[in-house]
């Protein structure tokens, strides 16, 4: 454990989390902690339970066993929008834009329903407007503010997905395969965006298959295989772990 983790209570603490779909065990006895400000890479082969874990943590799915503490507060029983309001945001593996709304309105949804729903916050119409512009500017989409999502390219769609998650002003962001299917230069773009967000104080968990991206981004790696956590530590060390090697490259 790093010094930062032992010094303060973790931002997210998961203990004994388990999820099954019928007879299939998707996640088994997952323990993990994430400290404020970390950049964690969550990797694992297809079907190892990464997205299921994100879905359980964000309230999209209900985990049968285990408990989740966010900033010392138990999340068990809270539904997705309540967790979002507490400061837990996510982007989806397949971008899910609101396809009948233009980009501004896409961002107004989290601003009006999450930021304004928090006690002590009330953005006026002009504040919301300005914040939308600012968020779009941050991902270089300002000139498409009035367009519909269907006019966007794949990488722009990913950026919108991130901007919408960031609009909730999260403390912890799960970026679920934010770079799948992008070209190397587009991957760099997204990493730059994520690094900037991290500098602004958002703790980020990156779920990704592109190892180059994961290695350059993460300060710590978590590895899931077949619903179990098999490694947790510094990226270079984890990659040397024989179990991880076996899971990725075979015997």
């Amino acid at each position, binding site marked *: 454990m790093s010094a930062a983790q032992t010094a303060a209570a973790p931002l997210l603490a998961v203990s004994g989390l388990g999820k099954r779909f019928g007879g299939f065990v998707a996640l088994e006895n997952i323990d993990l902690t994430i400290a404020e400000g970390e950049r964690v890479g969550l990797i694992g082969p297809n079907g190892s339970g990464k997205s299921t874990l994100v879905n359980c943590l*964000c*309230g999209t799915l209900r985990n049968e066993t285990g408990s989740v503490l966010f900033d010392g507060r138990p999340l068990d029983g809270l539904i997705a929008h309540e967790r*979002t309001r507490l400061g837990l945001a996510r982007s989806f593996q397949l971008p*899910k834009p609101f396809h009948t*709304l233009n980009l501004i*309105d896409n961002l107004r949804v989290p601003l009006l*329903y999450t930021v304004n729903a928090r006690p002590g916050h009330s953005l006026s119409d002009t504040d919301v407007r300005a914040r939308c512009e600012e968020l779009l500017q941050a991902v270089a989409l300002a000139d498409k503010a009035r367009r519909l999502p269907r006019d966007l390219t794949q990488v722009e769609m990913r950026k919108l997905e991130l901007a919408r998650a960031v609009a909730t002003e999260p403390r912890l962001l799960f970026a679920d395969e934010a770079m799948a299917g992008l070209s190397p230069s587009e991957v760099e773009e997204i990493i730059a965006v994520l690094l900037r967000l991290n500098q602004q104080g958002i703790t980020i968990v990156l779920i990704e298959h592109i190892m180059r991206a994961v290695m350059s981004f993460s300060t710590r790696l978590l590895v899931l295989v077949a619903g179990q956590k098999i490694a947790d530590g510094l990226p270079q060390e984890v990659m040397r772990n024989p179990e991880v090697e076996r899971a990725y490259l075979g015997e």
Partner: protein
Amino acid sequence: MRTGTFLIAAALVGLAIVVLTRIFFTNEYFFFAAYVVLQYIVLSTAWNILGGYTGYINFGTGAFFAIGAYSSAVLHKLPALLKTFDILIPAVPLPVMIVVGGIVSGIVGLGTGYLTLRLRGVFFAIATLALSVVVQTLIVNWDYVGGSRGIYIIRPAQAPLGGGYIQYLYTLMMALSVISVCIARWIERSRLGLGFAAIRDDELAAEAGGVPTLRLKLIATTLSGALMGMAGAPLPYYVTYLDPGSSFNLAYAVNSVAMPVIGGMTSWVGPIIGAVILGTIQQLATVTISSALNLLIVGVLLILFVIIAPNGIMGLISARQRRRAAIIEAAVQQRQAAA
């Protein structure tokens, strides 16, 4: 335009239409026909609040409509019932019945929503269809409101606001149309409407954005149900003979789906256009050809629109506007490039 201003403008337009038609049309049949068209403006606007804004397709319009109608029937018989217990109350005025019908249907909408909104897509639609059957069965077996025999309702001898009783019903339905259209337009421009649209486009993403989806969907079913009930409340006085067969008529469910589809589901204007066009065609066909032709016309128009213009008439207009804007934008860019 602000909601308050729009409300005043809409009320003035409604009032002007009522005054002008009541001056220029002396034929009672006009009011009979116009009442039906206005009733469909209310029904399709109400349907669209749930179906168009949040994307939950409701085939149970007939149930909510009939609940409004039958709650009026109960209120109509109430003074006589209370008299047997030596409690004397005057006849319940129709506007009160409309409010009560709205409240009862709204509660049923809330209950139905609570039980069914965990179902998505086609399963929700099937559940609403089932609701119609359940409510109809209850009414058929409820003797106090006539059961399957039906019930005769005698109109009051005097109509308020001058003129005949049908003119009075027509005026009330115009007021309901104005109210429901104003509610729909207000929703569209409010935070609520934005949340509805997010639910329609992607419910998981809406939740992730902090939208309390269940609560919003319950608001939609309650509002939609209440407006349908209000549209049904004057029915007993319109038909003067209320029976389950006519009040649960399939036409209400089919028309209130077809009208927003034909007019366009994403804006408050769509259901009005759909109701006016389809409602008028149906009324004309009833007089000139046959009343049985109505559903055939709806069916054919519905198929045509679903194939040719799935976003309805409003969708055609906004697509045209977008194309124009794109052409203008391209021209501007070309000019800038040349300069």
